[in-house]
């Protein structure tokens, strides 16, 4: 009888273990490799440094680890020795001492000396991190809910500006609970491009709430604060792709605004600058142009997917606190200005942010698109000139 119960229990335990094994197996089934310049699978340490500062930080961290481990072993060596030897069960009688000024002074002075040494070691790096002077290229980084904007202010590439958004397919994989790919949640449409071995000064600011721009391989992290500018810098010593993410809680899509920095050789960078400038010139829209409905709606679909689909979803239905666009009264309203004003000024206390950073043509295009897509069949067309008229 007893045997049987034991056997059943054992059987049950084995079943339980098998179930656990399946869960662990499912975990293993999501095969993923190291991402060069991004996180490695089960990475245990800081990212391999790509800047001088990052390698200083890594060295500092190793030194701190060694010092702390040394103190830890010494202190707890004593404690566990005492726990083993000075116990009542082995017949140890307690001693009677309970005070010693000399000992107290010693173990105040020695740790004090150790932290002074630690502080001095770090000082040089702090000063170096803060020295943003003599930059070769200055780039303004603006945090938006939930994307990054880059504007090349000074140096080679001056005048270039673009937004950098998470690939919408990754956002959908996340919602579906089906993540895939080594660069899951790190793939953006337009990476920040910089040349190798040049001092890049990053000026951060934000449009709405505080964001934070981080690239671990460069040991760079700088909050982007609305209404204020802050700066940081890096000089990448290797070409390649490097990844980071927003690290200051900025609302619901906080996990979905990655950073991708592409470091190119000087020649490749010059080529990229040329190409980008031509592309921008070609794209620069004349706000006086009068568009046909189909062409403008097609342009609007691109704008929608790059900016709106994250929250309002590709099907325009929104979800949760996000209002639908499909069938929305303001979109189907005969008065076209209503929807344009929402885009320009935002709505609901910033829950729907202002999109005035988009060009007149982009706003006109996306309004036209939403007015004539899904079940919205207004037939209305909003020309860029309409937007210009409403901008103040």
């Amino acid at each position, binding site marked *: 009888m007893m045997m049987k119960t034991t056997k059943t229990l054992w059987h049950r335990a084995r079943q339980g273990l098998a179930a656990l094994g399946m869960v662990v197996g499912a975990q293993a089934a*999501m095969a993923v490799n190291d991402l060069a310049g991004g996180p490695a*699978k089960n990475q245990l340490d800081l990212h391999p440094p790509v800047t001088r500062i990052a390698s200083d930080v890594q060295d500092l961290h190793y030194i701190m680890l060694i010092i702390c481990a040394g103190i830890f072993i010494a202190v707890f060596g004593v*404690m566990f020795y005492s726990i083993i030897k000075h116990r009542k069960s082995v017949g140890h009688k307690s001693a009677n001492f309970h005070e010693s000024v000399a000992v107290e002074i010693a173990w105040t002075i020695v740790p004090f000396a150790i932290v002074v040494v630690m502080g001095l070691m770090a000082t040089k790096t702090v000063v170096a991190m803060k020295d943003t002077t003599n930059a070769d290229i200055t780039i303004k980084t603006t945090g938006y809910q939930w994307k990054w904007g880059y504007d090349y202010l000074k140096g080679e590439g001056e005048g270039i500006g673009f937004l950098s958004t998470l690939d919408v397919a990754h956002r959908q994989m996340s919602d579906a609970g089906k993540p895939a790919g080594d660069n899951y949640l790190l793939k953006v449409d337009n990476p920040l491009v910089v040349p190798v071995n040049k001092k890049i000064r990053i000026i951060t600011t934000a449009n709405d709430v*505080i964001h934070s721009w981080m690239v671990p391989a460069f040991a*760079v992290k*700088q909050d982007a604060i609305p209404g204020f500018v802050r700066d940081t810098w890096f000089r990448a010593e290797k070409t390649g792709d490097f990844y980071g993410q927003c690290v200051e809680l900025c*609302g619901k899509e906080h*996990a979905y605004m990655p950073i991708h920095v592409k470091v190119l050789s000087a020649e490749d960078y010059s080529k990229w600058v040329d190409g980008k400038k031509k592309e921008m010139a070609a794209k620069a829209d004349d706000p006086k142009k009068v568009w046909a409905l189909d062409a403008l709606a097609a342009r609007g679909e691109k704008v929608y997917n790059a900016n709106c689909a994250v929250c309002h979803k590709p099907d325009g239905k929104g979800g949760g606190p996000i209002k639908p666009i499909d069938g929305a009264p303001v979109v189907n309203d005969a008065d076209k200005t209503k929807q344009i004003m929402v885009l320009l000024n935002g709505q609901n206390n910033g829950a729907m942010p202002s999109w005035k950073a988009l060009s007149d043509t982009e706003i006109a295009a996306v309004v036209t698109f939403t007015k004539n897509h899904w079940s919205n069949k207004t037939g209305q067309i909003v020309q860029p000139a309409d937007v210009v008229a409403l901008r103040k």
Partner: protein
Amino acid sequence: MSAVLDHHGSHDHDHDHHDHGPLHGWRRWVFATNHKDIGTMYLLFAFTMLMIGGILALCIRAELFQPGLQFFNPELFNSFTTMHGLIMVFGAIMPAFVGFANWMIPLQIGASDMAFARMNNFSFWLMIPAAIMLAGSFFMPGGAPAAGWTLYAPLTLQMGPSMDAGIFAMHILGASSIMGSINIIVTILNMRAPGMTLMKMPLFAWTWLITAYLLIAVMPVLAGAITMTLTDRHFGTSFFTPAGGGDPVMYQHIFWFFGHPEVYIMILPAFGIVSAIVPAFARKRLFGYTSMVYATASIAILSFIVWAHHMYATGMPVTGQLFFMYATMLIAVPTGVKIFNWIATMWRGSMTFETPMLWAVGFIFVFTIGGFTGLICAMAPIDMQLQDTYYVVAHFHYVLVAGSLYALFAGVYYWGPKWTGVMYSETRGKIHFWGSLIAFNVTFFPMHFLGLAGMPRRYADYPMQFADFNAIASVGAFAFGFMQVYFFVFVVIPMMRGQGEKAPQKPWEGAEGLEWEVPSPAPFHTFENPPKLDATATRVIG
């Protein structure tokens, strides 16, 4: 639980004198003015909030078990992290220590009760509406606040009406804390038994005295910060709105001027509990009592000049960065003194390892790991890599769970027999300890690696390279949660029901202090007349 009901007062000579036994039924608790009853209510309240906060933590860990969104949308996830933090800090850890203060301080200093008995009642009952408002904010339109427990502006300005409820709840909790602190300070300074000089006072009373001053100093600062948030939200001010000339970083300075002393508010009383337990089970007086008092005071003073180490990434000037780095590292010195004193107390003692001692030693061991990671985070250049990553999450759970919560458990096992009159089951206590210790480290140790690899905190979804450590952490978190349910069902409830071996007046051979001079369970009224104490102020001699 608590005091026995057969109160005895020889009041036959004084018939006008009212019977001071407990009221019966609900009146006993609603109208409670007895420090033991109020202490009991504080502890049960704190445990309830610990369970609510724990459920939120498990929701977080369930979502993070695998990459991809499985259970919750990101907005709700942010509400979970926010409310988990607020509930654990303001609902669980702080009230639990106030519960200990209520129960133990009058007993330890030979006072008959807390100085302001009715205010004591008020400060407890204020917490109930506040807690309901806080926890109930999940059911308000727009959901619970989702701006992180630090409530950084301007994100708070985007929150729905629950943010206002949250601010109101924090105001009430702050008022409750301030009243509790005034009560504790006045009790300690005015109601000590003759002969109980300040420098003979048990360290738990000392650490609480200092903590109470910290609370009075910083709770109004928090109130100021959240009031400004409230007026920014509704009355058109722009303290933190850049569009109107406000400064979002100013919020962080004000918040952390409260927030850093706050973390010492949550750890200093824990030091006091451990300082009572280690000597008791080492059967040897606490080593360096005087230096312990000075170390506690230094930590408290230093805690006011280190706040901006939470803000290295905001972009401070280099001098600011250096000042806050040096000041922060200095805190390691008095904290180290405390650890050394505890170990010197154990050294050449005659130790036994009943459950309270296990928790206390576990505290010293695991808390110190949190101390070391704190030192690493204090180094501004390294913190540039670690700020707002899971490394920080690991760090503060090592000091708040393995620190404050472990000490609270140590205290429950140590003084529980005095409260209830019965011994807990040693086997169950040990299961609780070892289970929690292992589960805790399985949960939080891998987070150091996630942080070093750059996984940001407050993320509902993450790159797949982080998957395995997150899965391990989630398994550990559920095990840890399970151990606390075990604790309540198999340790707390039996003790409250009086099931178990009857506790002697002094269940611990080496324990010292006036609380062991009264019977177990402690009668409803103790030290109604000031006791006469011996020279060490640890024994009643008449």
